[in-house]
């Protein structure tokens, strides 16, 4: 009945117990607050059953920030362990715990923190920027979020019931096969990612169709904001890459749960095939993460330089060059697997080639600033921090793109420093810029600028202190994922400096949390009354902050790139005709689908196949039910639209 689940699954070491206690502490706090303030109905009605991308975006971001904190704690633990586990000392984590920590760290940061922030911003901004009222498939959008959320919950559940994978964030076989990882850890990893991955794939389809089919009249593709172009590139990547992940995870699951032999050491399995497949997904994945961050920078730099984006057409070409190239570079993740000189060289050259369009983008941003009037607000600081750090990481990347050089750097801390530079300097700084830039639009009040700046400086300085030592350690022959090393190697000092760096990043996170608290406390003093706090250029700034549920009362045609800027300059206020607007209804089915996906995955992990079958049958039923439902929208009458608008709605 309970498969392989028994009370041993609840046996944990001290470190895990602290983590579990913190999580439960937070949960109890949240439940108490909701009960005390009598907000359960509100939570259900306004948030959990919503199909509004503005609400879904906030939920994505909230989940992502929570997972970012969890991943950051993992990072803190790793740095501490590596700073003290030298010679006779073995630190405070045993090898198994350490390996679970870094596996969780990577998995959480990529799949839940970065992807979550990305989808949050995309949900919020894309419909508004293209002048639409919703996404193409609102129900699917909500379902995507709940699948993402449940994937995250599976990872968190593994901390309490059972354990997580110790095979790294990509779980290479043979290590991830039953022979070497018999316990539930890898299964949790598989199903968390499989469920979240399906959510991502569906979201990719959704936003592709949204951008291609729901732009405002007059907004041709070449008049679209650059952020939307970058999202189009990302959704294209998602559509081609995520099915590979789905199939590969499924094959690993089939190996582990049904005795198949895709990637086992015996019976003819081929672990190298897994490495190829997982990176055929994995490389596009990192471009999926970075492109919208580039899109954010395009918006931020133009707005805060008070100038049009330089080289629009070139920027569009650069995005598509990056999209195309990102599919033919995957082998650079395993030059050392022995593919031979010609194959290695080809992939190496393709990898270097990506530096060209990326560089083009940086130059175009710089020349957007050229002859502008630059305001150094927090979003702009994040951009400058990006330029300072990403360039170094890019250099390191091109260095490793030369296969024989990579032979000396692969899987060393140099590699770890490189990809963290790209992800933190590029993705994280980009999404932080986006969050601080669009926060007033999302929540209706501005963030405290000073605390934002403190947070930025801590992140920048902390990042440099944490990762420059790692570049050096790589040259000193240090590999990644070591829970212990000899004193004679002379590595400890640098690990200590890196630990200090991470502590400073932690201070940065503290300032961000403080910024949120202070800004919420002071919100009435910092209300965004005009909807356009930065003197923005694109359509989202033409709505109230936050916008009404239907975004725009009228869908009048646009004529220009930087549509809102053009409207402001023309000082034209188009005549508004109030009409009835149809909006997707709230529905509890997406969260139910998410919950069923969770039980499906949980059942698979613990070999409770009756639960798997039941969840599957229920899923089919729910989907069939929904597919037969025709009353999925409600109408906001014209009089109500007029009332909302006159009470302080749009400015255009």
């Amino acid at each position, binding site marked *: 009945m309970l498969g392989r689940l028994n009370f041993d699954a609840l046996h944990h070491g001290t470190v895990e117990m602290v983590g579990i206690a913190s999580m439960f502490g937070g949960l109890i706090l949240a439940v108490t607050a909701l009960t005390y303030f009598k907000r359960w109905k509100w939570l259900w009605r306004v948030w959990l059953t919503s199909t509004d991308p503005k609400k879904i975006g906030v939920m994505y971001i909230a989940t992502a920030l929570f997972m970012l904190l969890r991943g950051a704690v993992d990072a803190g633990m790793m740095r501490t362990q590596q700073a003290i586990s030298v010679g006779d000392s073995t630190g405070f984590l045993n090898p198994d715990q350490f390996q679970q920590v870094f596996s969780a760290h990577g998995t959480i940061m990529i799949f839940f923190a970065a992807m979550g922030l990305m989808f949050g911003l995309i949900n919020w901004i894309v419909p508004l920027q293209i002048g639409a009222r919703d996404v*193409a*498939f609102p129900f699917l959008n909500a379902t995507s979020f709940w699948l993402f959320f449940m994937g995250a919950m599976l990872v968190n559940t593994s901390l309490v019931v059972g354990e997580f994978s110790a095979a790294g964030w990509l779980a290479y076989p043979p290590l991830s096969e039953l022979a070497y990882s018999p316990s539930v850890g890898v299964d949790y990893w598989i199903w968390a990612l499989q469920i979240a991955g399906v959510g991502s*794939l569906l979201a990719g*389809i*959704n936003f*592709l*169709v949204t951008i*291609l*089919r*729901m732009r405002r009249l007059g907004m041709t593709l070449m008049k679209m904001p650059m952020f939307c172009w970058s999202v189009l590139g990302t959704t294209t990547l998602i*559509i*081609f890459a*995520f*099915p*590979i992940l*789905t*199939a*590969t995870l*499924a*094959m690993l699951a*089939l*190996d582990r749960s*049904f*005795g*198949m*032999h*895709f990637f*086992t050491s*015996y*019976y*003819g*399995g*081929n672990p190298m*095939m897994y490495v190829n*497949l997982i990176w055929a997904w994995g490389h596009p994945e990192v471009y999926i993460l970075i492109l919208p961050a580039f899109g954010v920078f395009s918006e931020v730099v133009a707005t805060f330089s008070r100038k049009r984006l330089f080289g629009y057409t070139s920027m569009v070409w650069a995005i598509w060059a990056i999209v195309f190239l990102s599919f033919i570079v995957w082998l650079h993740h395993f030059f050392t697997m022995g593919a031979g000189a010609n194959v290695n060289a080809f992939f190496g050259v393709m990898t270097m080639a990506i530096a060209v369009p990326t560089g083009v983008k940086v130059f175009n941003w710089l020349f957007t600033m050229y002859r502008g009037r630059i305001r150094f607000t927090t979003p702009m600081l994040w951009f400058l921090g990006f330029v300072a750090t990403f360039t170094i990481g890019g250099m390191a990347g091109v260095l490793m793109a030369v296969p024989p050089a990579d032979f000396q750097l692969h899987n060393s801390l140099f590699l770890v420093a490189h990809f963290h530079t790209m992800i933190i300097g590029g993705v994280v700084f980009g999404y932080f810029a986006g969050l601080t830039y669009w926060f007033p639009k999302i929540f209706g009040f501005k963030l405290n600028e000073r605390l934002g700046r403190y947070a930025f400086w801590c992140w920048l300085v902390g990042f440099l202190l944490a990762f420059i030592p790692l570049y050096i350690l790589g040259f000193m022959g240090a590999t990644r994922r070591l829970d212990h090393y000899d004193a004679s190697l002379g590595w400890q000092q640098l690990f200590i400096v890196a630990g200090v760096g991470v502590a400073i990043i932690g201070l940065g996170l503290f300032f961000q949390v403080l910024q949120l608290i202070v800004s919420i406390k002071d919100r009435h003093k910092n209300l965004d009354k005009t909807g356009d706090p930065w003197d923005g250029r694109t359509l989202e700034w033409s709505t109230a902050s936050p916008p009404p549920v239907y975004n725009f009362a009228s869908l009048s045609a646009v004529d220009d790139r930087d549509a809102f800027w053009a409207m402001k300059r023309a000082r034209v206020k188009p005549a508004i005709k109030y009409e009835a607007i*149809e909006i997707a209804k709230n529905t509890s089915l997406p969260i139910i689908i998410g919950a069923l996906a969770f039980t499906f995955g949980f059942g698979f992990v613990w070999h409770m196949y009756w639960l798997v079958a039941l969840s599957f049958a229920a899923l*089919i039923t729910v989907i*069939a039910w929904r*597919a*037969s439902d*025709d009353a999925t*929208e409600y109408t906001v009458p014209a009089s109500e639209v007029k009332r909302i608008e006159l009470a302080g709605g749009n400015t255009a």
Partner: protein
Amino acid sequence: MNDETLNSKTVFGFWVYLMTDCILFATLFATFAVLRHSTYGGPSGQEIFSLPLVLAMTLILLTSSFSAGVGLLAARRGEGRQALAWFGLTFLLGAAFLTLEIREFVHLTAEGHSWRASAFLSSFFTLVGTHGAHISSGLIWMAVLVPRSVQRGLGSVDLRRLTCLTLFWHFLDVVWIFIFTVVYLMGVLS
């Protein structure tokens, strides 16, 4: 949102989904291609595939694709009973296809050539089985959607759904052609 818009967005979105399904199958095909000789001392395709059976399955599925197409045309003309008949035929043919496939699987397993025996067999059962799972989903979808659509008068919303279903069915037919060629034909001839 009027029905015109709904139609074009939904069908377009469904096409995009079919593309992703295509990539999913491509991944399984690529894996099969790499593992097709890893028989671990067990049988190769030549020894276990029956071309006559597979030919029969192919003809059945091709015919079902034709009947689904005719059924959709009938639905578009508003001819409920004809649509029901043609889709009914499609359903029976699909069920027959599935039955033959399951019988092949059961037969192989009983002889000891299950998916646990070698990498080749794992990838064979998974690739062909995934196609079979898609066919099963299609059949369930057909059984739920078609009678109801006919009963409700084949309005534009239901026509949109029938279009997606038929597209799905044709897509599975195309995938089967590849399976027939790459797995069975090339497996037997190599």
